[in-house]
């Protein structure tokens, strides 16, 4: 499988002179690892549910062996001495890490154009961006190089590129997946997310990495269900049995999902929030969403009109809170203990300033300044504290909708399909790409994007949002939609 993966990577041009998907990879090391695993499998057939599966990892997740640069000059060549918990868990299940993928620098961006190593191209149309900030991971999956990839989310950075690249992208509930080893951007929003070719791949990926980690004080000890069982319809099984354990560990196949029918989503109430279907929404995107709603109805679901009234405030709230936390999280990049150091020979302060101004790109600089400003004396109450309060209101909107009996919310993932490289230069206009995705990050609720069709050959994604720790229902709805759309999802 590893050989095929690198073969495909070569075909598609995953390197810097092609689509620029990979930042770092070591084919011979990966092939060696694969051989070792093959030998191990001969003597001990149970090597985990991901045995031998190639996985691509976004370059802001700490890995051993391959560098972790966050697509920034300030970490050029940095190889982490420790590994993220999510990667440890993937490898414990037999996965083979084949590459670190390109991204917007420090996860700040929605197009992967903010990389210090050049933009990544969308495999569906090389003039276009793959989305961001997990553009490289989304492209790796879209191009068929790996079936699963890890990305990260702070404001939609897994779902939006998933939508642009026509793959499945999942943001778990905040605290569902350990952040240990994820280079922090905005700590109260960050989560590692999973991209997959299919809902099944994404569900498997999330099962493997989710769960309590004592190294992350914000990780949850809520039980991790076997998400793949949601394909069977119905709620999550209450208890673990030897059968379900066998499925989880890959020792037993997942029972086949029935073909979607009129009762697959019977009793499920799907909310349609009016704030996410504005008149200004791209007409083709709106049509594809309506088609999805039709499919839901044909599967027995009830569609209910709902409102998430504070959603329009999400972008201002996000662009105060995330840069504020980022300005603090990025202070450690100072040229003292690791990474780039630029020393003009004029003392310590000059070294800090030269290192950081040469090491950070323009978007990172902009956000660190913005974040420093909103935290600074005299502005903290008006900006940061205010934004935190409005964030609570946004979260309350979701809570009341789910408390009223709605099981899942469906919206477009992005306002438009992928745009061309270089098309958007105004920073705020770029931020508006996240308009439908950031609310889920602010509220901490799980959300995922599934392909729902094409517009002028470019993929369009539909977003499913459920209540905190209810990924099971989210996958259930996603499985059903995927099966009901079939090949139409990619046409």
């Amino acid at each position: 499988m590893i050989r095929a993966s690198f073969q495909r990577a070569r075909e598609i041009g995953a390197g810097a002179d092609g689509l620029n998907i990979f930042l770092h990879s070591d084919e011979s090391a990966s092939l060696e690892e694969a051989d070792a695993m093959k030998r191990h499998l001969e003597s001990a057939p149970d090597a985990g549910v991901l045995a031998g599966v190639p996985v691509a990892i976004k370059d802001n997740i700490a890995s051993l062996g391959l560098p972790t640069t966050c697509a920034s000059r300030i970490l050029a060549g940095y190889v982490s001495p420790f590994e993220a918990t999510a990667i440890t868990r993937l490898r414990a299940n037999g996965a083979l890490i084949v590459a670190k993928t390109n991204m917007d620098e420090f996860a700040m961006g929605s197009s992967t154009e903010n990389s210090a190593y050049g933009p990544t191209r969308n495999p569906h149309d090389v003039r276009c961006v793959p989305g961001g900030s997990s553009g490289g991971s989304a492209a790796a999956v879209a191009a068929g190089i790996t079936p699963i990839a890890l990305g990260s989310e702070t404001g939609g950075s897994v779902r939006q590129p998933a939508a642009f690249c026509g793959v499945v992208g999942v943001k778990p509930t905040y605290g569902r997946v350990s952040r240990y080893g994820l280079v922090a951007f905005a700590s109260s929003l960050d989560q590692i997310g999973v991209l997959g070719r299919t809902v099944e791949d994404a569900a498997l990926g999330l099962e493997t990495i989710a769960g309590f980690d004592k190294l992350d004080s914000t990780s949850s000890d809520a039980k991790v269900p076997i998400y793949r069982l949601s394909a069977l319809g119905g709620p999550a099984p209450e208890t673990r049995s030897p059968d379900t354990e066998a499925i989880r560990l890959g020792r037993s196949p997942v029972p086949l999902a029935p073909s979607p029918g009129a009762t697959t989503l019977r009793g499920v109430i799907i909310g349609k929030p009016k704030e996410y279907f504005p008149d200004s929404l791209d007409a083709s995107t709106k049509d594809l969403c309506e088609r999805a709603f039709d499919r839901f109805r044909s599967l027995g679901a009830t569609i209910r009109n709902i409102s998430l009234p504070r959603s329009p405030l999400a972008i201002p709230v996000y662009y105060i809170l995330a840069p504020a936390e980022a300005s603090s999280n990025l202070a450690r990049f100072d040229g003292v203990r690791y990474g780039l150091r630029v020393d003009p020979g004029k003392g310590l302060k000059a070294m800090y300033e030269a290192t950081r101004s040469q090491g950070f790109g323009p978007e990172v600089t902009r956000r660190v300044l913005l974040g420093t400003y909103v935290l600074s004396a005299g502005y903290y109450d008006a900006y940061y504290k205010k934004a935190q309060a409005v964030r609570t209101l946004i979260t309350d909107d979701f809570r009341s909708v789910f408390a009223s009996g709605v099981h899942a919310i469906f919206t477009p993932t992005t306002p438009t399909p992928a745009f061309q490289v270089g098309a958007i230069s105004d920073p705020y206009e770029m931020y508006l790409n996240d308009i439908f995705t950031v609310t889920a990050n602010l509220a901490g609720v799980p959300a995922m994007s599934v392909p729902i069709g094409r517009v002028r050959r470019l993929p369009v994604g539909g977003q499913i949002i459920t209540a905190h720790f209810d990924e099971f229902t989210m996958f259930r709805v996603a499985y059903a939609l995927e099966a009901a759309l079939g090949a139409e999802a990619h046409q």
Partner: protein
Amino acid sequence: MAVTRQDVLHIAELARLGVDNARADELTKELSAILAHMEVLSQIDTAGVPTTPGVGAEGTPLRPDVGERPVMERTLESFAPAMRDGFFIVPRLATHEDPAESGA
């Protein structure tokens, strides 16, 4: 609330970002434009609204006071820009401030 050039230079210093004069003007415009979009928040009534405690209202987990061998697969020297005799080495502060001075 418009950001002034003075503000930008001040916060650039707080953030140790070394912004040169030309860039300072650009950034002043950019940040002002971005912050203008945030003004809408000042009109929202948030009296009595708690700031989000995050998902889950239990307290921070506590770990026992035992040393578990930290996992470091590479030495400090492998990634440190400058080390000598086991110390990280940095250029001296131009005014030789010590933590008593710089606000420790």
